[in-house]
């Protein structure tokens, strides 16, 4: 439910006056929602909202595009950020009167933080950015929004759009650091892991990143390290699979690593730190079902059907009983081949 903000909280000199009470709006004929009462038609409770939308209908009818229309659409948006006609008309008005778009963006900064989960806020921003073409400050702004809502779907999607649309090397240059910081902040943030994959593997090859095997090694080290910090993290295991799938690498490449997590015990004595195979941290809940699953996949791909079946059985009966039917499906399929 959007916060209720009375019209008086805007930057207008007219305090608490409704548009119907303002002399500078005298010339506009407000149009009420309905001519005839209709049982399904609403009776407006909030005088401010009725007033603003009546006047909105009035200026839409006359086609007015002016400064005061910006004030009016702002009133409506603050009362109801999902009123997409108001957004649409506001955008057209901005263009028609050649309004300064950086001023608009600053206003949008404020609204975005308040109405983070509204599509229109982000779409309006996209339209503005396509005109202002100044994406760099946006990254800072997006980071600020993500501080308050670290997994906001629209916000991350907007960041991806911004990077891909402008496709500027400078814009991309800080991105790996940024997503790393987000993962440090919350290692289980699936949006951050998804974004990392997007940045590393799905946005072309930038200068300094042409050695793809180096990139793959770097990413494998990175994800393994993060799995060692938090073993039961679905995002990280998906990421590991993603690296191997996307680069056509065999799962068996990480067999030694996966085995460390598929075991119930974590008491192997390790005198030498093995960077290739960082072990589970103390207190990790083992065995890790995702690791058992991964190991089963490795066995399956390597033709070791019996071992795979054993692991799937252990998942069905003990380690992931919720998905029993899925694991039994894997067993059946495995037996076929």
């Amino acid at each position, binding site marked *: *439910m*959007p916060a*209720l903000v009375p019209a008086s909280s805007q930057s207008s000199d007219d305090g608490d006056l409704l548009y119907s009470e303002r002399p500078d709006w005298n010339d506009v004929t407000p149009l009420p*929602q*309905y001519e005839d009462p*209709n*049982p*399904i*038609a*609403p*009776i*407006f*409770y*909030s005088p401010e*909202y009725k007033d603003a939308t009546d006047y909105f*209908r009035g200026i839409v009818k006359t086609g007015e595009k002016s400064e005061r229309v910006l004030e009016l659409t702002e009133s409506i948006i603050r*009362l*109801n950020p*999902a*009123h*997409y*006609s108001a957004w*649409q008309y506001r*955008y057209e008005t901005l263009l028609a009167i050649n309004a300064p778009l950086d001023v608009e963006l600053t206003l949008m900064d404020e609204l975005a933080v308040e109405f983070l989960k509204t*599509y*229109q806020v982000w*779409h309006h921003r996209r*339209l503005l950015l396509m005109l202002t073409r100044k994406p760099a400050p946006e990254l800072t702004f997006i980071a600020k929004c993500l501080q308050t809502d670290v*997994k906001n*779907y629209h916000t*991350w*999607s907007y960041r*991806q*759009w911004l990077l*891909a649309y402008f496709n500027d090397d400078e814009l991309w240059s800080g991105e790996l650091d940024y997503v790393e910081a987000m993962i440090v902040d919350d290692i*289980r*943030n*699936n*949006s951050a892991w*998804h*974004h990392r*994959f*997007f940045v590393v*593997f*799905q*946005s072309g090859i930038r200068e300094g990143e042409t050695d793809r095997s180096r990139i793959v090694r770097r990413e494998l080290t990175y994800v393994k390290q993060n799995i060692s910090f938090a073993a039961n*993290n*679905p*995002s990280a295991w*998906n*990421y590991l*699979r*993603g690296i191997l*799938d*996307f680069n056509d690498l065999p799962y068996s490449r990480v067999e030694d690593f996966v085995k460390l997590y598929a075991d119930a015990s974590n008491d192997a004595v390790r005198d030498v730190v093995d960077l290739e195979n960082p072990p589970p941290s103390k207190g990790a809940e083992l065995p890790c079902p995702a690791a058992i699953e991964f190991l089963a996949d490795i066995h399956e791909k390597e033709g070791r059907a019996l071992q795979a079946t054993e692991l799937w059985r252990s998942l069905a009966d003990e380690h992931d009983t*919720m*998905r029993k*039917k*899925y694991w039994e*499906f894997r067993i059946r399929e495995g037996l076929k081949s």
Partner: protein
Amino acid sequence: MSTSSPSSELAIPLHVAYIKALGDNKDDLAYHLTAHLRLNAIYWGLTALNIMGHKDALPREEMIDFVMSCWDDEAGGFGAHPDHDAHLHPTLSAIQILIMQDALDRVDVHRVVQFILSLHQPSGVFAGDQFGEIDTRFLYCAVNALSLLGQLHVLDEAAKERTVNYIIRCRNFDGGFGSVVGAESHAAQVFVCTAALAILDRLDVIDEETLGWWLCERQLPNGGLNGRPEKLEDVCYSFWVLSAMAILDKIPWIDADKLTRYAYNDHPSSPSVNHAQDLEGGGIADRPGDMVDVFHTHFGIAGLSLLGYPGLQDLDPVYCMPAALIEKMGLRKPWKALERRTA
């Protein structure tokens, strides 16, 4: 919000009363702040009533009149509310409502088709309206609406191909689908992509096992379903996840018992937090303890129908409409829900 009497029953009469009363709260600010969803809300309410076996609970003529009052004659589509600009989502809702009310003849099919086609982007996705927001949700709305109107053929082979290709490009490394190319996998987007492919007879592009796995991974230890890893469960995901799984014929991979008990039973650990359903005023919330709304009421009931809950009508997961209607229209695609249990 609810009583503490143990119960594992869906309180159908209460939910029917809740939906019927929705239009009564016109003095409520909340009612008109959700004007931008009004037509969609009527669709959610009407579908839920249909599935609960009370399809005539709301006055038919009034509803049809209201739908038609949302017609935007300039654009050739329906807005969510009178005076709102036409948009794909309420246009689909309008068509769905009129079909359920056996009044599809009220639609100017030609104009609606033109409206829908005008939103088809070169990339293959659809915009929601002339404002230009793109999302695989709108792709689904377009394909669904065209199909319900019997006009899917207006998408020629090339148009269909680029639509399918856009969906393929939305597939992520984890096997799921996002809202646009590059966006994170999300259960609701997985549903719209899967259902759109079903309508277009192109489920062949889906790796069913991987996607089925990603979907059954949405089930949390408490039995509820979430929309992406490490997020909270929400009753509406009962629909997004289950319907996609029904289309892929993988519903058995979900622990149906645990899901039903999570949403509709008492919680011994927190007796004050009961069902996701409100046993006093009716309606279903996103999770036990929260406020109800018609969106979650609809999707909660739709999910239960797919799980074979006794006493409910069959729901077609591809179109999210009563299955009997879709079958009568000759539009049924392959999908499989759980067997309807007898009480």
